[in-house]
């Protein structure tokens, strides 16, 4: 769902770009937040809570609350409600607290 017309705000959308979320290809507009693109695609669960593993949706939408942390291009704990979408981004929902470093064997 997107708001196309708004009585006060004017939306200047960037060009359409493709990105990958949990292995599947999606489309969004360049420069909108990753969360906005996922929301428009019907994705509502952004994260699971770290202890009880309950679903967490978009909450503060301004980069404060940690409800939407995802791994973006390999970087864990990215706040996708403020991170802007770019062509070809690889976004993965995060189980647990995020992996900063994986030991190569």
């Amino acid at each position, binding site marked *: 769902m997107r708001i196309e017309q708004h009585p006060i705000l004017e939306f200047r959308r960037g060009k359409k770009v493709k990105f990958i979320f949990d292995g599947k290809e999606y489309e969004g507009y360049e420069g909108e937040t990753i969360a906005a693109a996922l929301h428009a695609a019907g994705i509502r669960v952004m994260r699971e809570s770290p202890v009880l593993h309950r679903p967490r949706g978009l909450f503060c939408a301004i980069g404060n609350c940690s409800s939407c942390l995802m791994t973006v291009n390999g970087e864990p704990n990215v706040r996708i409600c403020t991170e802007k979408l770019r062509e070809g981004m690889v976004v993965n929902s995060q189980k647990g607290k*995020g992996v*900063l*470093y994986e030991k190569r064997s």
Partner: protein
Amino acid sequence: MHRHEVIIIGGGVTGCAIAYNLAARGLRDVAVLERYYLASGATGRCGAGFRHQWGTKTNCLLAKHAIAKLETLAEELDYPGGIDLKQKGYLILAYTPRMVEQFKKNLALQQSLGIDARWLTPEEAKEIVPVLNTEGLLGATYCPKDGHANPFKVTDAYARAAKRLGVKIHTYTEVLDIKVEGSLKTVLTNRGTFQAPVVVNAAGGHAATIGRMVGVDLPIKPERHQILVTEPVEPLLDPMVISFYHHLYCQQTPHGSFVMGLGDPNEPKEYNERSSWQFLVQMAGKIVRLLPPLKNLRVVRQWAGVYDMSPDAQPILCEAPEVPGFFVAAGFSGHGFMIAPMTGQLMAELILGQPTSLPVDMFHLSRFSRGELLIEPSVV
């Protein structure tokens, strides 16, 4: 007017551990006076680590017995949530030939006291900490039973156990003055007057101020140290990493966040609990060079606290010779939290006139006037 057998000034881990140990030995008419909330001073601001790896026999023994107590503390104090205990070791890095020499001396001492600490080559250190940049590293010492505990939970566990035994804990109660008449001490606070024949000074960075109230001169100076904490991630750093060369330490807590601190050798000796942006810049620069993958971690917050520095970085544990009934448990110089279980026990034994379970004579205040300092070489 509140009358008690013992008044303890300071509601940090040391004060609460002394209160519990007194009550557990049957002396239950004890009051703890804390100016803010429990663990609001150095306890709650500390780096939350404990280690066996010290450079003096006394500190090694104190640490060894205290850590053995921490291992079973949650059961002893009936604290079901636990104290966030993690025993994945401390890795202490050596960068100069002098450090190598000192560390090997320390190891010989530690091993002679039955402590399982060992020397590691840079390659072996990297096996334990794969994210470690070993550039310039000559080696490291490692003790697998060193680790982490939560200072708030340890303090809370002692305080709750003490309360169950009848100890009274008064928070937001600031000591303003102490009057000594005969054997009786009258403690004036912002919340009324307390009297007891025995007063214990466990006031950390404020210990010298409390000492002056009864005419006891304590050579303890507050010294600011700063810490930051990051967002949590999945476990990747097992041991606490310490570098005396960089004056820093860094560990990952069981929660997943990284806690790290930096000592500034030029820090003025004054009571200062404000954090600075300079610390943030220096800490980040140094830790990213030492543990490069941490560059992608976000800092959540930073804070400062004070070490209660004594001239030889060792605690003062004794009854003041000039004021019988006035006991001192202060001057911990940055390692009060980790030895608190033993401090609590030893002070309770001293106060009750019982034989102490470890020798404590060397911690007496009079060592400074005799010039018998016990200098601890291994402090960040």
